C-alpha cells in the first residue's frame, strides 16, 4: 500500500515529518517498507546560470562554460551537452555530490586538459526521466544558489512529495487505505483525523436498472448487501491532472475519469467499486453464484471458467464480473460511455480469496475484499463516487437502489483491562486503555469489566486478546519489562531424548572419521526415487517447485550420490559424505524415519606412500559399524542380502532379529550409471529409528580384573571351500574354547598357488588368556586341538600344511 505525505495530510492534521510518521506507523504495526523522498535525494543540487559558453580549446563537441553558482567566484565547467549556452539556468552538481543515476561521487576533473569544477545535469542523471539529449534548462525565474529541487518541482519535473510504502498484514483490511492509515495515526496521537463525512447525493430520477440478490439461504452471506445507481449523461475522458499525478506517484495507472473514480475511492477510503457501461448491460443486475463452467471475459482480456462456488455479478444474459475480484471486459466503461451504473457491494472475504486464488487473479479489489472491507461504508462509498463522477464527468444521478441489508453490528467483547498486564506484561491505567480503544473507534461501556464493541471496519477483533494487542500497539511496546522465566532446576537437566542423543553421537562419530556432513532436500527426482524403492504416487508432491524435486526421498543415498556427481563436475573425485535426515516410507504424517547414510567415493587418492585404496565394500562396512556402535554400543550381526541398489556380491545388511537396521556395500554399477558417476562408490544407510533405545544402565563400571598370567597367541591356517564365510571359522574357533580365548584376529585370506582350486586359506590368530595359572605347553596344545577340531567340524576345513 503506497501513499504520499500530502495525500495522508488530506485526512490527518499533523505537523509531523515523514520520518516521524514512518517510525510511528512501524511502531503501531503498519510497517513502513520504504520512504521515497525524491526531493531529499537532490538536496545537494543547486540552481546555477551559464555566464559564457565557449568552444573547448581541445575538443569540438565540448563547451567550456563559466557558471555563476552564486559564489563570489564563477566556476569553470566543461560540458558536452549541445544545449549548453550562455544565459540558461541549470541544475548544478558541485564536486563531492553523489550523482543519483550512477551512484558516483563527482570529483574535480580535467577534461581534455581543462579543469572542470562541477557538472550540469540531465534529467536522466538525476533519475528524473530518460532525457539525456541535453542538460535540464530550468525556468528563467529560478534563483541562482537556491536548491534545484524547488525549481524542478515548480516545473513539474520532480515530485517532492515523499512516498511511503506500507506493508499491511492480512488482518488489517481497514488499513488498506489512506484514510485507514490516518485513522490509526490519529489514534496513536500523531495528529487529528479531519476526514469529512460523506454527504449523500439526492437522486434526480428512479434507477431504471433494478438489482437483486439471487442466493440460496445457506449462501446468503456471500453478498449480504449490494447497492448501485445509474448516472446518465456523463462524458468520460482523462481524470483531472491532480488525480493522474497522485496515481503516478503511488504507482497506479490512470485509465479514464470513470475508472479512476473507483480506484481513487478504493485507495483513499478502502472501498472498492465497479462502474458498468449501463448501455452494454442487458436488463437488470443480480449477484449470484456462478454456474459450473460459466465463463467470464474479465477486464484483463482473459476468459475465466468459473465453478459453482464463485460469486458473480450478472445481467439478465451473462455473468459480467467476478465479484470482488475483477469486472467484465464487455460491460466496462470506455471513453464512449454515456450512462454509467455504479456498483458498491460487500462480498464474503473467504469466497473472494478462494476465487482469486483459484483463478490466479491478483487485483486491488481482491486485495481489499479478502482482507475485509468496512460494510458500513458500502453506501458512503457509493455517494462519494457519485459526487466525483458528477464533478469530473457531469451527468445526473438516479436514486440509490439497494438489495439486501447491512450485516448486524459486531457483538461487544467483555474485556478486563487487567489482561493488558497479565497477558501483555505491561501496566497501563484503565483510563488510558479506554482512551486508546475509543481513539481507534471502539465503543467502550465501562462496567466492572469493559464492554467493548469494535468499529464496523475492524472485523479482525473478536476477543480480549485482540484488544490487548490494540492497546499495546498504540501505547507502544517499549514498556514491556523483561521478566525471567522461573528456573525449574538449579542445575539444568539433560533434555535430549535417546534418539536425539543417538543422532548427535552418530553425526560427530562420522565427522571424526573424515566424513563431511550434508543437508539435502527431502524431495528428489521421481526417477531417482524409483531406483531406491520409492517414486510411488503416495510419495509424490502435487505441486513440486521443479520437476526434478517432485518425490519424497525413500533413502538418503540418492541425495548423496547426486551430491557426489555435482562435486565430480567440479573436478573433485574423492570424497566422503554423510547425512542424518529423514527418509520417507509414505506420504502421510509419521511415514518417515531418521536415517544416516554415508558414501565413500573414488579411486585410491594419489599419495606417494600409496596408503590409499579405491572405495570398497569394507570401507562402507567399517563406517556402518562405527555408526552403529556409536548409536547402540555394539553392532548387530551382518549378513548377505542388502537392497538391490548395492552390488549383489559386495554388500550386506545388519539386522536385529527379523528387523533390518542397516545395509552397506559397493553401489550397484547400474545405479552409478544412472547418476552418471564414473568412479567407485561404496555406501551405507542405517535407520536410526529402528535401533533399540539404550537401556538405562547403572553408572558403575564392572570391576577391572587384569590377569597376572601371561597371554599367548597361536596362529592357525585353515583351508575351506571358497564360499565358506570367514566369520564361520572365527565363530567355530571361539565356541571351541570359551574360557581361555580372549580374542581372535583374522589376519590373512589367500587363494592361489599352494591352495587347491575352489578353496581358500583363512588364517587366524587366537589369543589365549589364562585367569588362574600359566598354561603349560601341553595345555596349550590341547586347546589348539580343540580349536582345530571345532573349525574342521563346523566348516569342513583342513589345516593348511
Amino acid at each position, binding site marked *: 500500500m503506497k501513499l504520499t505525505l500530502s495525500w495522508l495530510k488530506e485526512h490527518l492534521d499533523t505537523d509531523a515529518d515523514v520520518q516521524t510518521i514512518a517510525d510511528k506507523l512501524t*511502531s503501531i504495526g503498519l510497517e513502513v517498507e520504504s520512504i521515497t523522498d525524491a526531493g531529499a535525494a537532490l538536496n545537494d543540487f543547486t540552481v546555477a546560470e551559464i555566464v559564457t559558453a565557449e568552444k573547448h580549446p581541445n575538443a569540438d563537441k565540448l563547451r567550456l562554460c563559466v557558471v555563476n553558482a552564486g559564489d563570489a567566484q564563477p566556476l569553470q565547467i566543461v560540458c558536452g551537452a549541445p544545449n549548453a549556452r550562455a544565459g540558461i539556468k541549470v541544475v548544478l552538481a558541485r564536486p563531492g555530490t553523489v550523482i543519483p543515476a550512477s551512484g558516483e561521487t563527482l570529483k574535480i576533473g580535467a577534461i581534455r586538459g581543462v579543469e572542470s569544477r562541477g557538472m550540469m545535469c540531465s534529467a536522466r542523471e538525476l533519475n528524473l526521466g530518460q532525457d539525456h539529449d541535453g542538460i535540464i534548462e530550468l525556468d528563467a525565474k529560478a534563483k541562482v544558489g537556491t536548491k534545484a529541487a524547488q525549481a524542478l518541482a515548480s516545473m513539474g519535473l520532480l515530485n517532492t512529495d515523499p512516498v511511503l510504502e506500507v506493508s499491511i498484514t492480512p488482518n488489517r483490511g481497514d488499513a488498506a487505505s489512506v484514510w485507514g492509515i490516518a485513522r490509526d495515526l490519529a489514534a496513536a496521537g500523531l495528529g487529528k483525523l479531519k476526514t469529512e463525512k460523506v454527504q449523500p447525493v439526492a437522486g434526480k430520477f428512479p434507477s431504471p436498472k433494478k438489482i437483486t440478490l439471487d442466493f440460496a439461504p445457506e449462501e446468503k452471506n456471500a453478498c449480504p448487501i449490494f447497492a448501485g445507481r445509474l448516472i446518465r449523461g456523463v462524458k468520460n475522458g482523462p481524470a483531472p491532472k491532480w488525480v493522474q499525478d497522485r496515481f503516478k506517484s503511488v504507482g497506479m495507472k490512470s485509465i479514464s475519469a470513470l475508472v479512476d473514480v473507483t480506484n481513487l475511492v478504493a485507495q483513499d477510503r478502502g472501498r472498492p467499486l465497479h462502474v458498468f457501461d449501463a448501455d452494454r448491460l442487458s436488463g437488470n443486475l443480480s449477484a449470484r453464484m456462478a454456474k459450473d463452467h460459466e465463463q467470464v471475459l474479465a477486464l484483463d482480456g482473459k476468459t475465466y471458467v468459473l465453478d459453482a462456488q464463485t460469486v458473480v455479478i450478472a445481467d439478465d444474459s451473462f455473468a459480467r464480473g467476478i465479484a470482488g475480484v475483477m469486472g467484465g471486459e464487455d460491460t466496462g466503461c470506455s471513453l464512449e460511455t454515456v450512462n454509467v451504473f455504479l456498483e458498491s457491494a460487500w462480498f464474503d472475504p473467504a469466497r473472494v480469496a478462494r476465487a482469486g486464488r483459484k483463478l490466479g487473479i491478483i487485483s486491488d479489489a481482491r486485495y481489499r475484499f479478502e482482507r475485509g472491507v468496512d460494510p458500513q461504508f458500502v453506501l458512503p462509498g457509493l455517494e462519494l463516487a457519485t459526487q466525483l463522477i458528477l464533478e469530473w464527468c457531469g451527468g445526473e444521478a438516479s436514486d440509490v437502489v439497494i438489495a439486501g441489508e447491512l450485516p448486524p453490528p459486531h457483538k461487544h467483547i467483555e474485556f478486563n483491562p487487567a489482561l493488558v498486564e497479565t497477558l501483555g506484561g505491561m501496566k497501563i491505567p484503565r483510563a488510558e486503555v479506554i482512551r486508546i480503544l475509543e481513539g481507534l473507534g471502539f465503543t467502550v461501556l465501562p462496567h466492572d469489566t469493559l464492554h467493548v464493541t469494535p468499529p464496523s471496519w475492524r472485523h479482525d477483533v473478536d*476477543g480480549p486478546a485482540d484488544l490487548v494487542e490494540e492497546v499495546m500497539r498504540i501505547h507502544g511496546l517499549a514498556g*514491556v519489562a523483561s521478566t525471567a522465566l522461573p528456573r525449574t532446576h538449579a542445575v539444568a537437566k539433560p533434555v535430549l531424548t535417546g534418539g536425539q542423543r543417538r543422532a548427535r553421537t552418530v*553425526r560427530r562419530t*562420522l565427522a571424526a*572419521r573424515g566424513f*563431511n556432513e550434508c*543437508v539435502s532436500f527431502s524431495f528428489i527426482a521421481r526417477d531417482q526415487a524409483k531406483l531406491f524403492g520409492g517414486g510411488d504416487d503416495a510419495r509424490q508432491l502435487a505441486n513440486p517447485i521443479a520437476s526434478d524435486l517432485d518425490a519424497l526421498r525413500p533413502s538418503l543415498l540418492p541425495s548423496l550420490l547426486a551430491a557426489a556427481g555435482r562435486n565430480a563436475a567440479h573436478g573433485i573425485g574423492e570424497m566422503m559424505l554423510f547425512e*542424518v535426515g529423514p527418509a520417507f516410507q509414505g506420504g502421510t504424517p509419521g511415514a518417515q524415519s531418521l536415517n544416516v547414510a554415508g558414501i565413500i567415493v573414488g579411486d585410491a587418492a594419489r599419495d606417494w606412500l600409496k596408503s*590409499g585404496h579405491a572405495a570398497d565394500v569394507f570401507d562402507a562396512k567399517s563406517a556402518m559399524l562405527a555408526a552403529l556402535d556409536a548409536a547402540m554400543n555394539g553392532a548387530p550381526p551382518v549378513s548377505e542380502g542388502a537392497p538391490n541398489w548395492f552390488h549383489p556380491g559386495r554388500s550386506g545388511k545388519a539386522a536385529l532379529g527379523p528387523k533390518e537396521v542397516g545395509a552397506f556395500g559397493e553401489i550397484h554399477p547400474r545405479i552409478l550409471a544412472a547418476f552418471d558417476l564414473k568412479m567407485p562408490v561404496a555406501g551405507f544407510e542405517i535407520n536410526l529409528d529402528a535401533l533399540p533405545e539404550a537401556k538405562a544402565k547403572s553408572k558403575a563400571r564392572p570391576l577391572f580384573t587384569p590377569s597376572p598370567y601371561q597371554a599367548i597367541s597361536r596362529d592357525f591356517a585353515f583351508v575351506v571351500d571358497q564360499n565358506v564365510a570367514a566369520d564361520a571359522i572365527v565363530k567355530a574357533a571361539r565356541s571351541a574354547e570359551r574360557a581361555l580365548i580372549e580374542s581372535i584376529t583374522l589376519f590373512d585370506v589367500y587363494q592361489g598357488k599352494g591352495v587347491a582350486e575352489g578353496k581358500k586359506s583363512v588364517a587366524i590368530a587366537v589369543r589365549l588368556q589364562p585367569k588362574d595359572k600359566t598354561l603349560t605347553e601341553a595345555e596349550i596344545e590341547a586347546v589348539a586341538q580343540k580349536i582345530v577340531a571345532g573349525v574342521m567340524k563346523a566348516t569342513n576345513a583342513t589345516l593348511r600344511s
Partner: protein
Amino acid sequence: MSDLGKLQSELLARITAATDEAALEALRVEALGKKGSISELLKTLGSISPEERKVRGPALNGLRDAVADAIAGRKAQLGDAALDARLKSETVDVSLPPRPTAQGSVHPISQVLEEITAIFADMGFAVAEGPDVEFDDYNFTKLNIPPNHPARQMQDTFYMSGGEVGKEANVLRTHTSPVQVRTMLAQKPPIRVISPGRAYRVDSDATHSPMFHQVEALVVDRGIHLGHLKWTIEEFCKAFFEIDAIELRARPSFFPFTEPSLEWDMRCDRSVPGQIKFGQGNDWLELGGSGMVNPKVLSGCGIDPAQYSGFAFGFGLDRMAMLKYAIPDIRGFFESDIRWLKHYGFAALDIPTLYGGLSK
C-alpha cells in the same frame, strides 16, 4: 713383570685397533678364552710359590680386568658407531607429506542447532520433534489459519498428491509450529519446548530455499506474559550471538496463531557492505515472529486459556547460522558442495557447550 706389561700394551693396542665386533671377539677368545693367553697365564698360578703368587696373582688379575674392560669399552664404541651409521643411512626427507587423512565436518545447521539446544536446555526447554509431512489440520487449522488464508495457497505450500487441497491432502509442513500443536495435544502444561526441524515453502531465491530450517520455542504455563517472551528472546540472543550488549526492538505484527503478535528486530551495524555487527549501529535486523499463543489455539489443543497462557516464537535456523557465521547465501546450505562443507563446516570435536563457549 715386564713380560705382563708388554702383553698388556700389545693387547690393548690391538683392541683399540679392532674395527668390528668379530675382530674384537677373536681378540677376547685369544686373550681371555679357555685357552687364551691370559687364561693360560692364570693357570700357572697354581704351580708357583705362595710368596710369588702374592705378587703375580694381583698382577695377572689386573691384566685380565684391564683387557676385559678395554674389550667392553671398545665394543660399546663400535656399537655406538654402528648405530650412528645405521641411523644416518635411515634418514628420510621430512618435508614429504604424511599419509593423507580425510578431514570430516559437521554441517553449520547441525552445529547451530546444538548451540541453540544448549542455550534452551539451560533454560529448561526440551526438544520436540514432529513429522515433515503434516496433516492440513495441524499445519493450518489448529493454528487458527482459516481455509482461505493466503498461506494455504499452492504457490506457498507444498501439497502431497492425492486428496483435495485444503481438506485431506497432506502438506509438507510450512513451519515447525505443528510440532507445538502435537506437544500441546500430548502434554499438559507446564510446557517448555523448542521445536527445530525442516520446513518447506514454494520459494526459491538467494534468501529463500524451498526447504529451510526453523526453530520455534513454546512456553505454556500459568501467568505467562509478554515480559517472559521478551526476556527469553533477549537471553537467547545474548547467549547465541555471544554478545552482552544486544538491543532488541518489538514491532506489532500479525500471525493467526498468536495474539498479540510481535516481530523482533536487533540493533546492528551494516554500514560496511558484507559485514554485520550486532549491538551497535543504526540498522535493525529482523529476527523473527512471536506472540502470545492465541486463546483459540490453546483451546483447540485442549488447554484452557482461562487458566493458562503461553508464548511462542520462531526463527530460521539457517538464517541464524548465516547471521552468526556470515554465510551469505542460503542455497549453499543444501548443495553439498564439498568445498562449501569444508569451508563453513565445523570440526567433529567442536562441541558447543555453555561452559566452554558455543563457538571457538
